[in-house]
């Protein structure tokens, strides 16, 4: 199995220490790279410097530990789980640990990015190493004080004990520890000795969340801060022609109406680029107001005319474009094994099906927003963005500041799902503040977010299988997508390596509709298509659908193909666990089951959906999930991610639709756009495969298999195959209740 990254980062010089002027030990460290030799450790908390260090640990002389980390928290729980890993190796009582969101100056970051379910996977080794090194420093300091060998001392819950039974709390030796050399080659704990990892640790922000304390971007306030709403073209393909702000300026609280767009065009002309920069070149009209309501009302009162400069696209046109791609010959081949032509020519039977999915908006509950204060000397930014280092870099380039003059404060994010990987709202806020020379918060309405989004691409898959002598002898997957193609690794996910004659082709259409990553990019729909298709193949071959997967997986075990991403053994173990826990095939009368399994983001997941019929209509009761994500750092947080991912996957597969007419999105708010609600939810029961392998991410992998499990259960109940999302349109009923 291929390892995408080398986590054996240099253990040298990744960590530095200082004595705090207020007393206590401060440790600055980096996740993946060495600290720069010239990096200077701060000696007070007010001047923590995240240019040179990814994070800091403070150990006070009372023995309390505070971890300062700017890693973005979008609800995936890393603000809790990453400090748990440090605390484990540091050997401290969790109740003496506090976690503080560091602010962010952005140079030299290796991974201050929330996306791709990779935070824990990337951080695991480095965080353990850091905690263990800090612990060893404290032990060394104590040993020196006692004049004994450090190896004769032990630690537990923040207490160091020597062979005579003498004890020091960590706080009692921090000042001495700060003066010692950083030890190398420290010993990590045995996994069996973990006392914090594997415990159910409640989200570190829970008290603030349940009492409504300011945490999110929209909660950010600064003296003199104004509010800005942005009018963008109502249709893709349009640019601003002219506008009349007379009525808008009459709205009480509206201070000014301006346009922005020059800076973005200059940036594009300069030849600079950045993958997070997905911004239209049009001028935009901005209402500056004293408060949010005036900004919203002022924008409604604007009169603008728009000019169509590129094709006004529609869903019918998108549908035809994608079908034409699938019917055509022009593709990029992403993987090819054996000879699929021969396999199809010699097949006993060939099966081909086409699967359809719409564009989807992200609909983070907290609409896009950002604070910017541009002054002659510097730029201060604050808010929710999944890629802070890129956002700061683009703003520096956009406005012509050195990067070290751009300071970005991270807030908690009211959901991400990929939308906040793109910093368009940060650049707009910066351009507005630069224009008015005042601090400003850019705000958005739900309609802004839903109609001027960066959508999940509309995708169709056509899958063709050759069946010969009761086996799948050939497999050909074609992807047609608008605005993107599956990322490189996906063509090496299951069933690659399991079928001798195999091919994955992709082709995309470049649309003026902006598209980007959406939770579990591509696999969010591909898993449904493939897992439905395999269910259909199992029916055709008259074999148990789980047995078909297990038989296929035998072919990938022991593969020497380094491109193969997943593990046949781990997938098999995961599938067997869900088969057992879901009572597969042994449920009571009237319960219909559907199975689906998928590997993505380095995690193996298998799911079984249970459906009953109520007045002939499917009601989803339960989804049983088995997950292999290696060591489970924080089981409550881990289950929460999987439960949410499964329901999110079901919700979007079942209910969420999106369409365009004359370039305009036809869904604007939650009155017509459906997100799953409580009455539609089944119970999700999560089981983890127990092993001692390094942990992998959970923000995304629960989602991809969910749609297939539900579709296959609906087939078991009704005999109807589903090929098009959202399912509700094919089921022709208003609701499938949980």
């Amino acid at each position, binding site marked *: 199995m291929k390892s995408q990254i080398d986590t054996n980062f240099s253990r040298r010089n990744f960590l530095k220490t200082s004595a705090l002027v207020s007393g206590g030990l401060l440790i600055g460290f980096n996740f993946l790279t060495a600290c720069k030799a010239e990096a200077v450790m701060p000696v007070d908390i007010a001047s923590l410097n995240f240019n040179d260090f990814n994070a800091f640990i403070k150990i006070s002389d009372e023995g309390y530990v505070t971890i300062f980390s700017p890693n973005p928290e979008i609800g995936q729980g890393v603000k809790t789980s990453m400090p748990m890993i440090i605390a484990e190796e540091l050997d401290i009582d969790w109740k003496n640990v506090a976690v503080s969101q560091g602010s962010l100056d952005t140079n030299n970051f290796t991974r201050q990015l929330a996306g791709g379910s990779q935070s824990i996977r990337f951080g695991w080794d480095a965080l353990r190493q850091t905690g263990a090194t800090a612990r060893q420093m404290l032990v060394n300091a104590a040993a020196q004080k006692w004049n004994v060998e450090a190896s004769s001392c032990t630690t537990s819950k923040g207490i160091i004990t020597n062979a005579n039974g003498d004890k020091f709390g960590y706080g009692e030796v921090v000042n001495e520890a700060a003066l010692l050399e950083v030890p190398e080659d420290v010993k990590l704990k045995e996994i069996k000795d973990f006392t914090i990892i594997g415990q159910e640790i409640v989200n570190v922000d829970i008290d603030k969340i349940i*009492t409504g304390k300011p945490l999110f971007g929209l909660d950010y306030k600064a003296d003199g801060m104004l509010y800005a709403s942005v009018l963008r073209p109502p249709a893709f393909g349009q640019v601003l022609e002219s506008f009349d702000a007379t009525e808008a300026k009459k709205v009480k609280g509206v201070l000014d109406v301006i346009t922005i767009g020059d800076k973005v065009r200059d940036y594009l002309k300069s030849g600079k680029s950045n993958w997070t920069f997905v911004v239209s070149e049009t001028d935009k009209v901005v209402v500056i107001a004293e*408060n949010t*309501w005036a900004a919203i009302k002022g924008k409604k009162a604007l009169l603008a005319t728009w000019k169509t400069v590129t094709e006004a696209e529609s869903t019918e046109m998108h549908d035809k474009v994608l079908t034409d791609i699938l019917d055509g010959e022009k593709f990029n081949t992403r993987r090819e094994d054996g000879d699929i032509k021969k396999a199809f020519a010699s097949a006993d039977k060939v099966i081909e099906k086409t699967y359809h999915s719409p564009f989807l908006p992200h609909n983070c*509950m*907290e609409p896009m927003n950002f604070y910017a204060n541009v002054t002659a000397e510097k730029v201060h930014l604050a808010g929710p963005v999944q890629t802070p280092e890129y956002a700061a870099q683009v703003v520096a380039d956009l406005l012509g500041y050195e990067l070290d003059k751009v300071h970005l404060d991270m807030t908690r994010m009211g959901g991400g799902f990929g939308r906040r990987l793109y910093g368009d709202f940060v650049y707009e806020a910066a351009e507005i503040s630069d224009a008015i020379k005042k601090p400003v918060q850019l705000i958005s309405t739900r309609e802004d977010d839903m109609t001027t989004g960066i959508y999940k691409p509309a995708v169709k898959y056509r899958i063709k299988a050759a069946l010969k002598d009761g086996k799948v002898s050939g497999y050909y997957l074609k992807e047609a997508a608008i605005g993107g193609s599956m990322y490189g690794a996906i063509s090496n996910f299951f069933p690659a390596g399991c079928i001798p004659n195999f091919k994955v082709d992709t082709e995309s259409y470049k649309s003026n509709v902006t598209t980007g990553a959406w939770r579990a990019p591509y696999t969010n729909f591909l898993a449904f298509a493939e897992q439905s298709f395999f269910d259909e193949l199992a029916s055709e071959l008259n074999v148990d659908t789980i047995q078909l997967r297990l038989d296929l997986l035998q072919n990938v075990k022991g593969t020497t193909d380094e491109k193969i991403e997943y593990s046949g053994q781990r997938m098999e173990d995961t599938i067997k666990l869900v088969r057992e826990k879901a009572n597969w095939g042994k449920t009571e009368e009237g319960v219909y089951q559907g199975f689906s399994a998928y590997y993505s983001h380095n995690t193996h997941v298998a799911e079984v959906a249970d459906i009953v019929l109520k007045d002939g209509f499917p009601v989803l009761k339960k989804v049983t999930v088995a997950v292999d994500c290696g060591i489970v750092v924080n089981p409550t947080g881990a289950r929460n991610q999987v*439960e949410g991912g499964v329901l999110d996957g079901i919700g979007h597969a079942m209910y969420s639709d999106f369409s365009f007419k004359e370039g305009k999105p036809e869904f604007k708010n939650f009155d017509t756009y459906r997100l799953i609600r409580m009455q539609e939810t089944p119970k999700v029961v999560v089981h983890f495969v127990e092993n001692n392998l390094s942990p992998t991410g959970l923000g995304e992998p629960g989602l991809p298999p969910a749609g297939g499990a539900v579709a296959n259960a609906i087939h078991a109940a009704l005999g109807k195959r589903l090929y098009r999302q959202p399912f509700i349109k094919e089921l022709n009923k208003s609701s499938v209740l949980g």
Partner: protein
Amino acid sequence: MPNYTLQINGEKKSFTADEDTPLLWVLRDELNLVGTKFGCGIAQCGACTVHLDGVAVRSCQLQVSILSDEKITTIEGLSTDGKHPVQEAWKELDVPQCGYCQSGQIMTASAFLSQNKNPSEDDIREAMNGNICRCASYNRIENAVKVASEKMSS
């Protein structure tokens, strides 16, 4: 702009606002009570839920000019110590993911439980159906409402 005085979390609060300003934006922008969240602006998501004389309402739909001496409670005033049984249940079950919708969920749940002390599973699912959680932490919200109801009846 006119002056208003409202009863919010047991205190009289005075401010100026345009008469059509929704209570939501008065709370957030004028009174710095930012626990009440903006999600959709059309009463479809429940993120802005507050109590008006103990009843759960959508503050994005309540124009400030129609309010007078009603008792308004926001998440900040639900309890003085964060220990309302619903808040405690939320903590016990580690409900939130991103957390943005949760104050609205808690306000809907607490108003509902003050009316229905011993709700069935169906009652809970119906009562909470108006609040969207984009992270889909629905299983935990449902269980937490149940746990809170048990705390309140014991």
